[in-house]
Structure formats: C-alpha cells, structure tokens
C-alpha cells in the first residue's frame, strides 16, 4: 500500500515543484485534447445537426455507420492514421508522424463519431414545435441552425464532454502515432504506461492524479456553464 501513498505525495511534489517532464506531458495532453475536441466539434456539430434534424434517404444507414464509429478500437485508428502518415503512406509528405498534430488527427477521428452521434441524438430529441416556433418568429436558415443548437446546448455539451473524456484518456493512438517521444509527443497517458512498465508505480499514480485534476477542472467548468446558461 505504501506505493499508493507515495504516489499521492509524489504527485503533489511534481505539481508543486513544477517538474518539467510532468508538465511537458501535461502540455502535450492539453494541446492534442484541445485541438482534437475543437476539430471534432467544428466538423461534428453541423453533421450531427443535419443527421438529427433532416429526413433524407440513407439516413438510417448513415446513423448506423456513425454508431459503429463509436466502437472503433483506438489501436485500429492508430494503425490507420500511422499507415497514412508514415513516409510510405499517402500523407507521408506532410511529416506529421510522431508529432502532436499527428496525434490530434487520430484523436479527432476517435472523437468525431461521439460528437456526431450524441449531438444528433440531442437535436433529434428536440420538440418538433421548436422548428415551427423559430421559423414563425422570423429565423432564417442560419438562425434556425443556431437556435436549434442553442436549445440543444445541454445535450451538445454532454457530447463534447464525453468526447473529451475519451480523448483525454486515450493511449493507443498517442502511442502509435506519437511514438511516446520524451519532451515532444509523450502525453500523460503514454507516460503512465511507460512508468508502469518500468515499475515506477508512484510516478504512474502521480501522472494519473494529474489527469484526474484536468478532468475535474473541465467537468467543473462545464457544470458551471450549464448552470449559468
């Protein structure tokens, strides 16, 4: 049991003293999480709105595909992104393999189905009278989209939060696409995996605590936003 207690103490020490290696991993985690969540929201929200709002041929099939995307194994995503970004791959010339943007691309692919599926469900669950109300009060198509998204804001926030939780705790993509390079692409989760392999449980627990603090801070902020709006 001592190593668990030591882990807590070490976590506090690492955070209070501003350990550069820890903060490098935290920085990498925050950058790839923020980038991938931003990208998945920008791409996923309009797609989720369309999927939830409109009736069109092939909607069920598309919904099935998106729902399947929810269960995509992260190592598979990592493998596919690796194959595209490697020197021999179609996007090899971009030099994104073993970089933070490379990890962010993989994480975006992971988060996108979550944002699309959950925001589509949130929009689908809106009262049919909302559309009539917004149009009859003078909304044009853009205002109808914004108004519906705003009305579904709590469901959409939950979609973003779920995607964030998945992205923040992801290991496979970060490991395969990022390569776990110290000071560069090592994230908190890949660092935990490494420290545990080395038998450094205390360091692993310390990094795990850091991850928890990040998750708690984000959830607290979202909870505050929900109450405020």
């Amino acid at each position, binding site marked *: 049991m001592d190593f668990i207690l030591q882990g807590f103490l070490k976590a506090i020490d690492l955070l209070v003293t501003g350990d550069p290696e820890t903060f490098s991993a935290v920085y990498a985690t925050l950058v790839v999480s923020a980038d991938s969540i931003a990208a998945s929201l920008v791409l996923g929200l309009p797609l989720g709105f369309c999927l939830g709002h409109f009736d069109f041929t092939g909607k069920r099939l598309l919904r099935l595909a998106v729902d399947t995307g929810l269960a995509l194994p992260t190592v598979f995503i990592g493998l596919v992104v690796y194959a595209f970004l490697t020197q021999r791959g179609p996007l090899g010339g971009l030099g994104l393999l073993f970089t933070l943007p490379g990890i962010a691309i993989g994480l975006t692919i992971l988060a996108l189905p979550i944002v699309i599926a959950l925001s589509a469900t949130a929009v689908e669950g809106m*009262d049919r*009278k*909302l*559309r*009539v*109300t*917004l*149009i*009859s*009060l*003078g*909304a*044009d*198509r853009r*205002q109808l989209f914004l*108004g519906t998204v705003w*009305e579904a804001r709590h469901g959409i926030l939950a979609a973003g939060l779920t995607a964030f939780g998945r992205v923040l705790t992801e290991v496979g993509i970060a490991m395969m696409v990022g390569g776990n390079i110290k000071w560069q692409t090592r994230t908190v989760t890949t660092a935990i995996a490494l420290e545990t392999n080395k038998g450094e449980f205390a360091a692993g627990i310390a990094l795990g605590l850091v991850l928890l603090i990040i998750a708690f801070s984000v959830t607290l902020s979202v909870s505050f936003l929900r109450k405020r709006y």
Partner: protein
Amino acid sequence: MGGFLYEISGLRQVYRTQPVLHIDRLEIPQGAIVGVIGPNGGGKSTLLKLIGFVEKPSAGKILFKGKPAEPFAPQVRLQVTLMPQEPFLLKRTVFNNVAYGLNVRKDTDTIKERVHEALAWVGLNGRDFEGRPWYALSGGEAQRVALASRLILKPEVLLLDEPTANVDAMSSQLIKDAALKARQEWGTTLIIASHDWQWLHEVADSTLHLFKGRLSGTGRETILFGPWEVLGDGRWCKRLPDGQRLPVPQPPDDNSAALIANAVLRAGAGEATSIALPAVSGIVTRLALDNSSGDVLVSISAGGLPFMVALEQQQPRQLGIYPGRTVSVCYNPADVTWV
C-alpha cells in the same frame, strides 16, 4: 381593407402517404379576421402551418400579396407569424423569449421597453416576469408569453392555432383581447383556428369550416357522424343516444359524415309532429351572435349530440328562445350533404 392578402389555389398537403389537406381555392382579404373551425384532424393546424410559411405544401400555390411565397422567403418571414397549438417556449428567460424575434431582425432599439409593453398587452408585468425561466410559468402564462413574443413583432398576419385551449378563463380573455387589439391598432390580419366557435362567430369577418382536410360548408351546419343504420324499408337513419331517429339519404360509406344545412327551429318539442319535415327534440344550450351575418346561432343538444340553427336577430326574442328551453330542430333530408 385592401385586396387579397392570400390567394391559394390547388393546395395539397400529404404526410407520408396520407392526404391531410386539399383546398382548391381560397382567398383571404387583408386586415380580415378569419375563423377556422372544424373537428380535430380536419386540417386546421396544417392549413395554418402552410399559410404561416413554416411548412412547404406537397402541391399548389400560395400567393402572398400577389406573389408566390414559401418558407424563409424574406417577404413573409418577417411579416407572418404563427402561434402553434401548444405553448412552446425557448429554453431561456421570458425576456429572451419575447425578444427573440426582434433579435433575429436585429431590431434591438429600446428592446427592454418593447418587451415590457408586449408583456403588458397580455396582462403580464414585465418587471415580475422578464427574469423568469421558461419552466417557471403556468400553462396560461406560457401561452401569453408565446403570444407576447409574436405581438412584439407587430406582424402583418397573426395566425393563432387554438390560442385559448387549455388555459384558464382569465388567460383566455387576455389572449382574445390582445389579438383583437393587434388588429385594431396595426390592421393585423388575424386567422384563428379554435374550438371556441362562439367567440369566432362573434369576432370573425368570415369563417372557414375544414372537415377531413377540405373546406366544406360555412361552419353553421350541423355535422353528424356515423354509424348509420338501415331500416327495414331500406331507408337510412342516424339513431341518437336517446333513441330518436333522424332520416338521412343513403351514405356513400360508413365513414361519411352528414352535413345538415338550413335546419329550422321550432319552439316547443310538440310542434315537431305538426310539420312534414323530420325533426328532433333537444334543449337550447347557447346563443351566439354571428358577426359576419348578424344572425344569432343557436346551439341545441339533442340526444347528447350538438345541433346548430341560425336565426335572424329578432327571432330568439319572438320565439322565446333561451338556454334551457326545449325545442325541435327540423330539416329537409334533401339539404343533407355527405363529406
């Protein structure tokens, strides 16, 4: 009143494969108050959605001020507003609900005063209500906030779908007053679907009667639904719950409804036997003034079914017609049409 605000031709609406509205021709003058009456599922809400430009018709043409219009078209988007049947408020405060329409128009000068004024029109105090969230309102208050958010727009056309259904008497009166005031002050054309036919007949310049998605009659007819019974001699009739029988022509099918026009009222149940026309005995339940014709509409409950007879303005006094009086309703079977 000017020319026709709406000119509708060949209007059809089909939901999946189910036809719900079929109007060959309809014209609505500018500045009019038009009542839309009819049973549930008759197509009232569909008609209001189509002429409120929140839905596209399956077929047909709607001209607004002489020009074809459709949802989101600029000439109708900011001038025509519909209040749907059940109050629906955005998940925001009362202030933001009422101000929404002005915000989308980017017309935000003196917005606070205008929100307060619109709320005052429907009997709500702006200071007390502006900060309330959407869920902290009673049904009547929510309906009034929904109306205020339309009135603030000073619309050219205000479509109200069952505005007084499911609200308390005070809210109902405030909603009615506010709608009529809009017409009086801004010349707003009012198109109102309501089960409160007494009120509609009192205020409307004209009344549309929608039945099974079609315009039928004037709304002053009695409607009888099946089942229809064939007698031993091959004649058809409707048997009322109290055992009275009404002869009718042979119905086209079991689902047809009979529209009885030109029914005549005889004071005293006994008189019915002295005339050749078939008659049914019932009790007067209501008298209402028909604004468009000046007639008095008499509601009679016969065997638990509602009948309607139009009388000239002085006739109720002459015949001694008042609620509670037993009367006979006579009709000519030749005046029965099937819908």
